């Protein structure tokens, strides 16, 4: 075997939620049978943005906030890959917010895992946009409701590192959604930063598992929104599969997703000559 890089050891603080996210991802990739060389893990910048170093897959460390456009490019370029984008809530909800909304809209078939800890871990503890209200700040952004508000979205879930089994099955469901060509699988994970903002106690109390609620219907967008809103009013946070729907994926709209976009098809030159004929003087 060719020697390539060996997945590294995480550099996170002991107890960091991100370990849990990584564990779930590694197990999920195995479960869905994604071959390492046919998998690409793209990460943002932040503590969370080192996950790609620890997973056996092609890895890419994007610019801060740009992981989704890059992942979209990869997914469109090679639809055979299992494409997993991952990053922090600063990366995804601050500088990356515009891309998040547009990725929901475009619905490319890839998985996006956001490790939310309400803080910027790597830059030492500033507030992230997900951070809740305090005397000097308005309420935080709720990416789940945001995702529900985009008519093109197709898969929205939230896990919690404390609930490892559920997290793993949500990760599996997300990757399967994307790999089935059904579009953008968005998974937010509550992943506490034990160094700057240990939310384990708070989230332990607040988490509400919609998967356990037989009355909850993840195919009902407006119902999902109402539930999220009600829970929020009660200071609770819904976790589980929030929504799944059937919007057409971006690659599907671009035609058969079964080939790599490489040049050299036998007719390429003829097609090019055709273009020139149209410009003839």
């Amino acid at each position, binding site marked *: 075997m060719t020697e390539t890089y060996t997945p590294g050891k995480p550099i996170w603080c002991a107890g960091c939620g991100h370990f849990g996210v990584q564990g779930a991802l590694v197990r999920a990739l195995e479960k869905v049978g994604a071959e390492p060389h046919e998998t690409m893990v793209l990460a943002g910048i932040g503590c969370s943005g080192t996950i790609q170093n620890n997973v056996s897959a092609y890895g890419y460390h994007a610019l801060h906030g740009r992981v989704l456009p890059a992942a979209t490019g990869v997914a469109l370029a090679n639809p055979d890959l299992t494409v997993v984008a991952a990053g922090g809530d600063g990366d995804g909800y601050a500088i990356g917010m515009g891309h998040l909304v547009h990725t929901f809209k475009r619905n490319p078939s890839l998985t996006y895992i956001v490790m939310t800890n309400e803080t910027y871990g790597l830059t030492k503890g500033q507030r992230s946009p997900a951070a809740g209200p305090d005397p000097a700040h308005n309420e935080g952004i709720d990416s789940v409701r945001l995702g529900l508000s985009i008519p093109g979205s197709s898969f929205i879930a939230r896990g919690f590192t404390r609930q490892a089994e559920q997290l793993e099955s949500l990760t599996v469901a997300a990757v399967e959604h994307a790999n089935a060509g059904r579009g953008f699988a968005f998974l937010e994970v509550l992943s506490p930063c034990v160094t700057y903002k240990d939310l384990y106690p708070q989230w332990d109390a607040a988490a509400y598992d919609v998967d356990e609620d037989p009355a909850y219907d993840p195919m009902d967008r407006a119902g999902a929104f109402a539930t999220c809103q009600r829970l929020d009013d009660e200071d609770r946070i819904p976790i589980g599969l929030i929504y799944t729907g059937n919007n057409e994926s971006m690659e599907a709209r671009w035609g058969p997703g079964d080939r790599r976009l490489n040049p050299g098809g036998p007719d390429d030159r003829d097609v090019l000559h055709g273009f020139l004929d149209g410009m003839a*003087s």
Partner: protein
Amino acid sequence: MSPNGVTDFNVMVAGQGGDGSLTVVTLVDRLMRRHGLHLYTSRNVASRIKGGHAAALLRGSDVRRGCIGDHLDLLVAFDAEALEIAGPRVGPEGIIVFDSSHGEPRTEVAIDPTVQRLDIPFGRLSVRDLRRDLFKNSFGFGVVTRLLSVPDDEAEDVLSERFNRLPPRAKAANIEALRRGFEYAEEHGIEQGQGRWRFGRAQAHGEHILASGNQGAAFGFLAAGGRFFTGYPITPATDVLDYLGPRINKLGGVVVQAEDEMSSINMALGASMAGVRAMTASSGPGIALMQETIGHLGSAEIPLVIIDAMRAGPSTGMPTKPEQSDLDMLVFGGNGDFPRIVLAPTNPYDAFEIGVIATNVAQLYQGPVFIAMDQAIAQDSVTVRRFDVDSVEVEPGKVVDAETLSGLEEYRRYAVTADGISPWATPGTKGGLSLVTGNERDEWGLVSTEPDNRVEQMDKRERKVKTVESLLPAALRGGDPDAEIGIVGIGMEVGVIIEAVERLAKSGSSYATFMPRTIWPVPDETIEFISSRRIVYVVEHNAEGQLKRVLAAAGAPPDRMHSILRYDGVPFRPADLVAALSERASVA
């Protein structure tokens, strides 16, 4: 022009933007192409949808020209503002056809006394007789063809061809309008076949196409295997999106209109990293937004072609006006030191060739390659040889496949190699797992700040530009190679320099011309050219002499270089340059 035939003819049609008046130009254009003339066409519009002065310029000539000529021979002015602005540009013995429907100019217009002016209320008559203002164009064309001594049936033929796809009713109305034009000409004493000008016999020029630089570069990208394009609309780069949008899918490729320029370039980056040749295009403001990612491409070693169709800055500036004022940003923008290549086509054919080179070189050296075109090169349409697509080679670069990998003992994405280029396995390839990052990293792709490793990786990246240097396009040269005074210019200056120096040579002044197509890294030949002259005039469209500055930064002797600058949004005409050079010669 010779009495026997038009050999160099400049016509402008001007009016308010969006009222369709510019279609007259496309008619004259067809006429000239039929007669085997080379064309150079340019539009001059305000950055707004309707209203605002808009003009289309057309030059037909028997030798290929790279700019509009000094004077207009014929001006078709659809309103008073057009007459005010363009009237003074009509040369001796020229003709102005003026749509007098809406009154005279409010200010005195300085028009050459030998110019003849025909006042015809096209608009009013069109509305009166044909019920729509729009028909004034075909009406005007009728007068113009008479002035050009074109037989009426040929004019009708051209018109029919052009309006082929119109409903029969509309087509008939246009022909009716054309005939009204003939009548009106007749009333003004211009008989069929007896106009002021006359085309010569059509000559065979080989297979030609009419293309702009934007189209040339886009086509070159496709020909060299480009299959993924992202863009965000911006003048004057939107053409590339427009050109590729309906075409790339016929080659199995993808075009995405992104939500902004950061998304645009990062999607292209993603596709490229996944092994598909990718390109994006924008203009100054958008390229400015891409700066962080451009450095990232340089750092992480990801190929990408980036078109910058340059408009007048700074900031939003004058979106429809040409300038060469992004050079500094292209060469020096972005944080940190990283390799990049900046190429500058001089005409649409060149844009095609450079599109090919850029796409191949990006792939070969694994980094960003800019195609820098001022708005004139990007958008002016010119008759050029049919792009030689059959001779294009698609360079694979150092991409390694699973088979090759299985024969290797180890694979390091950022292996330090003698030529600075590391073998590259794209995702999906068995045996090539790799880490790609914009942090400094070791050969495996793992983040590292170890000082020796850092230096090795930096040096490797700088080295690889040298490796591909010989593939970068050489400068065009002209004039007298032994002259002690040199002229340097890129893009839109090239056509002007060639014509000006041709004229100056006739009057006994000789200059050596040097027109770089590779801006960065500055090739040795550029430094040599400058170092071996007494004086070098660097002709540029910007205020600070950016090209001169780039050359000085690369070691060209600053005291030999003198700037000839323009930054009012207007291209040089050959006469401007002749004047500027003559003036300097008399001082020197």
